[in-house]
Structure formats: structure tokens, C-alpha cells
């Protein structure tokens, strides 16, 4: 894919579609250890993202990411809205006015996204949250093309998401369950890995 604004918009659309296709799975995951809305929240939010992208076509990758951020913040609510919103907002700021994303810029954007999530949610690795998917993704996000960077990140995110299964949650709604949260995949970690997979495939 091209890594200009249109390419990034295509990647965001792909992520929106993949997350929406997994809506029921994400609802079920959240039902087990939360309040059964994660899939619905993201479906609603990315629905508005798609509508926003249909309306206006931002002219830099950063502007696309910012549009995603503000849409998620203003339409999702819950924990995922502000957390993903902040992630996209920090990523947008990190890539600045660049007209084209480079492998380095993608790595930097992912790091900024993670920093944003941690700044807002104060979760650490092992707390059974999206941070468990995003942290290894950032560490793995190296490569000579954007596709390579994102493919490595997506693979690491997937493993990171799986790693949440045995964990006892210490942040978010699942933490109320105490040890009963162990044995379940964290919905936010799962949606993070889905988004990165969609980005990687769009870039390849």
C-alpha cells in the first residue's frame, strides 16, 4: 500500500471492517469478564470513523489518524473510547505533518500510542489489558518496510493478547472479578491485535 493519507485511510477502513466483523467475538469476550459491550462499542465507533472518512479526506496521514482519534473519543465512551482515542491522537501527533509514513515513523507512532494508553490508563504489562498486546507490538515493530514493521507488530500483538488468558486482571472492569478473571482472553488486547493485523495486511 501507499503510506500517504489515502493509504492510511485504507488501512483504517480495513481495521474498521475487521473489528466490526469480530464484533460478536469481542462482545462475548467482554461478557465473560466485563460488561459485554466492547465489540458493540468499537463497531459503533468505527462506524462513525468510516462515515467521517467518507465525508472528508484528510490530506496527511497524521490528519487521518487525528480524525480517527477525535471520532473514537466523541462516539465510543467506555474505557476503550478514551484509550484508543488517545492512542490515535498521540500517533497523529508523533507523525506530525509528514505526507508519507516511513517504517521509522510507524515505529514511533506505535510507541507514542502505547505511551498514550499508559498515560491515561496507568496499566502495566501483566495487568490483562490492551497494554499486554500493544507493548510487545511496539518492541517488535522493526523492519525495512512499513509492511514489515506492522507485520512484526501484529504478530507480537497476537501473542501478547494470548498471553492475557491466564492472567488475573488488575485494571479495568475485569479486575472486579479478582481471580475469576483468569482463564479468559482480554477483549481490549484482542481488539488491539485485530487492528494491527488489519493495518499489516493493508500495508502488505
Amino acid at each position: 500500500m501507499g503510506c500517504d493519507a489515502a493509504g492510511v485511510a485504507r488501512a483504517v477502513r480495513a481495521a474498521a471492517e475487521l473489528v466490526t466483523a469480530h464484533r460478536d467475538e469481542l462482545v462475548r469476550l467482554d461478557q465473560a469478564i466485563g460488561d459485554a459491550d466492547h465489540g458493540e462499542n468499537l463497531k459503533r465507533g468505527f462506524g462513525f470513523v468510516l462515515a467521517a472518512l467518507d465525508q472528508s479526506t484528510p490530506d496527511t496521514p497524521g490528519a487521518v489518524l487525528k480524525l480517527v482519534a477525535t471520532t473514537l473519543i466523541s462516539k465510543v465512551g467506555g474505557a476503550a473510547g478514551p484509550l484508543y482515542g488517545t492512542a490515535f491522537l498521540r500517533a497523529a501527533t508523533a507523525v506530525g505533518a509528514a505526507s508519507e509514513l516511513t517504517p521509522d515513523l510507524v515505529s514511533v507512532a506505535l510507541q507514542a500510542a502505547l505511551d498514550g494508553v499508559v498515560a491515561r490508563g496507568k496499566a502495566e504489562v501483566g495487568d490483562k489489558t490492551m497494554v499486554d498486546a500493544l507493548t510487545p507490538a511496539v518492541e517488535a515493530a522493526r523492519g525495512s518496510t512499513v509492511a514489515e514493521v506492522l507485520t512484526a507488530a501484529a504478530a507480537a500483538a497476537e501473542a501478547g493478547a494470548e498471553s492475557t488468558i491466564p492472567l488475573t486482571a488488575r485494571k479495568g472492569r475485569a479486575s472486579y472479578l479478582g481471580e475469576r478473571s483468569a482463564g479468559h482472553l482480554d477483549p481490549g488486547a484482542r481488539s488491539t491485535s485485530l487492528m494491527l493485523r488489519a493495518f499489516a495486511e493493508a500495508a502488505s
Partner: protein
Amino acid sequence: MKKIINDPADVVVEALRGLAAAHPDLLRVTEDPAVVARADAPRAGKVAIVSGGGSGHEPLHGGFVGPGMLDAACPGAVFTSPTPDQVQAAVSQVDGGAGVLLLVKNYTGDVLNFETAAELAAADGVEVRSVVIDDDVAVQDSLYTAGRRGVGATVLVEKIVGAAAEAGADLDTCARLARAVVAGARSMGIALTAPTVPHVGEPSFTLGEDEMEVGIGIHGEPGRRREPLPGAEGVVAALLEPILSDLPFAAGDEVLLFTNSMGGTPLLELYLAHGIAERVLAERGITVTRRLVGPYITSLEMQGMSLTLLRLDDELTRLWDAPVQTAALRWGR
């Protein structure tokens, strides 16, 4: 799923239309972003009290909008905290120049969205304070959780702070009172059945015919443990013990006892449990001087109940007794 709804995606906005139609004297509804505001807002010179949260807990919060309680409520999607835009819109609709107090239930989503809203409102030049409500003793307040949930005390905070604001208290006083109620209130809940979220279409969890879920919240999340359902005496004991030992409450305390239905538990059972709770408290030397019994903070059609105890002093008692005119709570005037 058996519900009296049309498209699950439209449940909240359609319910808001019904709320607006039912109470034209008390409140006004805007649909996008969704805000329920006092009909006479903004009130110049009065501190505005704003709360909100996911829908599905009715009458919380929209049913508490009106003179003597909330100036505005922001209803999110079912079980999903509202967005910053909603809160910001509510603040701008009801700000009367004396500042706005945001009453936030302690859930990650609510805290983050209200936090952003507070920043946005401050940037608009509105003086904003937030108080986070966390009264649920089922959740250990420690490094290992997101902290205690805000549950039953929310109703009490909204009533008491709303009365203070109505009487002309300033923003600092309102915030102090909110913190005082939070500090003196503790809650605990159990469930006999799970709620069915409209967009999910099936119950959030399943319980055996003889089981209750102990330490539940109001979003269909499972509780801390599952136990055989005892008789009403046992249920009340399971709720009261952790509340009493937590603050702790002691003989000689004067308290408000709030016996709350989670939605599906009928008044017949609720009053029965309330009577037992009053008897047990009397046996402990704790004097119930005020009470509230009914479905006030619910979880859709979930069967179950919660108890909230609030230690009262003269100031809180006077504010509790002050007139209130809302869809769900009315007295005085």
C-alpha cells in the same frame, strides 16, 4: 431476548424521547449528543450538578434531574459511559456561572471520559470540579483492582449535593459534601439473575436455580463469588456484614438505609428484605433515621438487590430532607 424495544441500537434515544414526553415540566432532552437537562436550566448563580453514566440503570441518572437534585445527566449507550462531548454539552447547557460539579462513578471508562470532559469544559472557561464515587465494598480497594465501583451511594450523593446546590452552596462546599457522602457510605449487592443487554440478546451470565452471585456490580459483570441462595435472612446478612465491618459502622451511629432493587426484584421482596435489615441494625445498636426503598440504581431487568448505608450527621440529614422534584424522587416543597 424478550424486550419491549425496536432496534437495539435505538433503545437509548427512544427511551429518552419517552422520558421527555413524560416529564415536560421537569426536564428537556437533546438527542445528539444525548443530554437530559433541567427544564429551567441554566440557573444563574447556582452551582450546576452534572452526572451520567451508561444507560440501563434507570431511573439513574435522568430520573434524578430536577429541582433539588441534578441539573443534567448524560446517558451513555447501555452499560457504556458517556463520551466527553456529551458531558461537555451538558455542562454548557446548565452552567449558571457558579461552577459545575461532575459526579462520576468509579469505572475506568467513566473516569477517563469525565476527565477529558472536565478539561474541555475548563478550556471553555467553566469552573469544574469532579468527585469520584466508590462505595462498593465487594471490590477490594487495592493495587490489584480499578478500585471500588460507584453504586448505591451515587443516588445519595446526587440527592444531598443537589439539595446543597439548590440552597445556594458554592462549588467548594458542594464538592466537600460529595466527598463526605462518599466517605460515609458503603454498599454491597447480590444478583439472582443476570441482565440481558439489548445489543447482546442473551443474559450476561447464567446462574443455577439455587445460586446467587455475591458482590455484583450494575453492569452484568459477574460478582466475586457464587453461593447457594439462602433465605432472605441470609441474603441480608451477606450484604450487611461486609458493609458494617468496612467503614466500620458502630453502635450509636445514625444512618440512612437504602434498600435497592436491581430492577427485577419486586417490591414485595424488597420491603421484606428491608424489614430484616432494619431489625438487624437495631439489634446492633445502629439507628436508622432515614430510609429509601425501591429500584433506584438498577441493572436492566436483573433480579437482585443492594444495601447502602450512609452515616448521617445533622447537615446530611437536613440536606436529605430538603425538597426534591424529579421523575423518580419527590418530596417536600
